[in-house]
Structure formats: C-alpha cells, structure tokens
C-alpha cells in the first residue's frame, strides 16, 4: 500500500518527536546502553529510576535501543515538538 509519507520521513519524524522509554522490570543493569551512548548519557540510571530519557542532549540516535540485549528500551512518540509548532 502506497503512502504519501515515506518510511524514512516517518522514522525521522518519530526521532524528533519522541524519546527513549525504558521498561524497568526487564532491565538487569548491565550498562550496555550507557556504554553505547555516544554522548555519555547514563541511560542505565534512567532505567533504574523508571524515567524516560528526556535528557536534552539525547540525539535519539537509537544506539542504546539497538545494543540493549534485553529489549528494555523503545521509542515513544511524545508529540512535544508538534505541540510546540501549533
């Protein structure tokens, strides 16, 4: 089914309008997420505290999600920037 919005556009939109969210109960605190973050955000600490990664420096590059061996992290669309635009 064709869509007027390409998958790539969709992906970029998600990245700029969402953030990384942990599921604390899956996390075993191995720290691979923090280790793989290119700008040194302590993603693991967020997971321990059950906090979304709302750090303004977060690039939403997805490295932490990609490397987590326990499927703890996922993107969630927050609509923050959409609301700001309106």
């Amino acid at each position, binding site marked *: 089914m064709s869509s007027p919005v390409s998958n790539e556009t969709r992906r970029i939109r998600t990245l700029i309008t969402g953030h990384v969210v942990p599921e*604390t109960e899956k996390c075993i605190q191995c720290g691979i997420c923090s*280790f793989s973050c290119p700008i040194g955000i302590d993603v693991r600490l967020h997971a321990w505290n059950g906090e979304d990664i709302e750090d303004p420096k977060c690039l939403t590059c997805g490295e932490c999600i990609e490397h987590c061996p326990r499927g703890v992290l996922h993107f969630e669309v927050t609509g923050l920037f959409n609301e700001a635009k309106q």
Partner: protein
Amino acid sequence: MSRYTIIGTGVAGFSAAQTLRGLEPKAEIKLISDDPHGYYSRPGLAYYLTGEIPEKQLFPFYKKGKINLDVQHTVARVTRLDPKSHTIEMNPGGTQEYDQLLIATGAHSAPMDVPGSDLKGVVTLDSLEDTRHILSIIRHIKTAVIVGGGVLAIELVEGLVEQGKKVHYLLRGDWFWSTIFVEAESRMIEHRLVEDGVTLHHHTEIKEILGKKGKVIGVRTSSGEVIRCDMVGVGIGVRPQIELAKAANLQTDRGILVNEYLQTNEPDVYAAGDVAQIYNPQSGQSVTDNLWYPARKQGRTAAYNMTGQHQAYPRTVSVNVLKMGGVMTSIIGSIGTGRDEGPVYTTRGSSETWKQLPNTIATELSTGISNIRLILGQQKLFGAIILGDQKISRQLKEMINDQVDITPIHDQLLQPGPQLGKVIMDYWVKTKK
C-alpha cells in the same frame, strides 16, 4: 536509631540498602558479603564474557570505586546467626549486633556431582571472580564442553563462542530448556547455535570429567563417548544459600520461607531475592524467583517492613527477556511446565511462578522468524512466550499483568493466523483507552 544489617550485596541487598537510606537518612546500615566486589550486575557478566562491555561497566552507582549510600560494606563471611540475641558472627569481624536483619545471600551455581569436577578448567559464571577466572585462562582454551539447560549454560555457550572457542553443548533432554520451551521454540534457538558453530549433543550427560596433571582434558559422556576439551562450563542450576538460616532454625524449604512481608518466622529477620521463598496468599503456595527485577522489588519491600512500615510484596507477573542463540526471547507470566525431567535445580533467570498454571489452553503461531505461544483461559491471558519479533511483547505483558478481559478476542486467539499481532495490538489499544 535503628541498626540495620544486610547479608548479601546482590540486587536484593543493594535495593534494600538504598531504600533504607531513603527512609532513614541517619540510620546505621551495614552490608556484609563474601563477594569482595560488592554490588554489580550479575546478569551483566554474560556481556563481560562476550566482550561487549568492559568490567567497570558492571558497577552502577559507583563513583571512584565507592558507592554513595553511606553504608558500611564489610567483606566477610557470616558464619552464624542467633535471632534470639540479635547477633551474627562474621569471619573476619567477630560478633556484631543488629536490630533488623535481611538475609539476601542469593543462590549459587550447583556443582557437578561427577568424578573430576574439582579439576582445573571446570568453570561456572556465578560471580565476577568466576568470570575473571574464565577470562584469565581463555587464551589457553581451544575446546569447551558446556552442560546445563537454562540461562547460565547458554550464557557460557555464547560467551565462549564469541571468544572464538569450539563449543560442545550437552543437553540431557530432547531439546534445549525443555522444562520451559516446547520443541518448536527450542529448535529456533538450537538452529542459531548450530549456525554459530556449536555442536549439540542431545540426551547426553557428563559421567566423568577426565584430567591430566590436575587439568581438564575431556569428558566421558553417558553414552561412553569421550569428548576432548580443556574447559568444562557448568550451568546445571542454582541453589538458594539457606545454610545460615537453617542453622539458625529459621523455617526453610527450597529457600528461606517468608510471609508476604518478607519476614521469616523470627520477627526481626527478613529474606529477599533468590534465597527467599515467598508466601502468596492468593495461591496458598510459597515460591522462589531467580530473576533480577523481583529481587530488587523484594529488597525494597523488605526495607519498608524492616523500618516498621507494613507493606506486602507487590506481585506482578514474572518476566524475563533475553537473547538466546541471538533470538530475542520473552517469557511472561504462567507458561506451565514443558517436560518434567526429574528433580533439577532452579535455573538462574527463571521463576517458579512460570510453572503455576490453572486450566488453560495453549495456542501457538510460528512464522519461521518468530514464534508466539499464548496461554489463555476463557477470560484472560495467563502467559506468553515470544521468540524473535518482539513487537507485541510489551502489549502482551501488560494484558497479562492487568488481567485484561479477552473474551471478545478469545476465539481469534484460539485460531491464530498472520493477523494475530494486529488482533492483539488493536485490542490492547482499545482496552488501554
């Protein structure tokens, strides 16, 4: 001011210490363990072994080697507990008094009970010291034999494959982890292990570990075959460390028996984590968990009760998500027992609650790259196992945990087709609103 003592620096002990410090900023909190490294991510050892993370990454909350909780950490073995006089004996350290005590001694890997199990080269993956030991001898190892059917064994298999070793994996049943997985699920994982170069040996146990000059040179299997190797990795299961409690006349079974407030039969002694066997008033049974997050929650609950704040252990469904053979796998809620292979030790990374199952039906969908098994009653989902694509695992976990009424989609779940994911996703969205 109360004096709190916690025996064990795993996640249950650490979580209790952190909670106690939050509740009572000025209280005296002592952490005692015979693991010299204190609190670290034990499940993370698997990724240290594969080389994915450096050792220092295993230590959360440490700054310059110190944990900022203002707790006194003593490396010692607690040799005796006397609940009547509220004292423990430590070596080194002598006798110490406490007001409230938490036993969070965890579970240790069960040793092999075969000739040769004391040879150099017989290893396990229980602690940081174990992992350091494997890595210290790894360059001399060409071939390893791994035995055991759960998480610990497969972590050893994958770690050694990643280190470039030839690995023989001995399984005593028809397929990998047959007490949890059905055949199709297990074969997905086995297939990937074989692709990675692992040689699988089904219906095979070690009868003897062969040695020369005190070192492993091979194993003799139940079929009489000799497999040459220079390392034997043992992951046959874990045993809760209940000896201290038993000697102190605390009530024990498989673990230390505690009520839903994590209190033992001695009012000022609590237990949490892998060592605790917790009473569930709903089922009337006492069960153990060998999972990280329940241990953390138990530590927290115990801490509240130790300070006098009565709080029952908040039960949620037990979940474990991990990669096995590179296949992302979620095990959620009650999934029943696959095959009963006789008395086996509890497996690390598992929960006895997975095996509690009322009258249910299992439904299964396999798409080649993923496999979904749902355990459902007439009105609700009891459990799920998802291998491969995890798109609906979070939704299933929530539906199981929240005991969502599935009556409207019950028939569709019983006849799963390619639309199963959509049915579950749409229903989850609908019930979320």
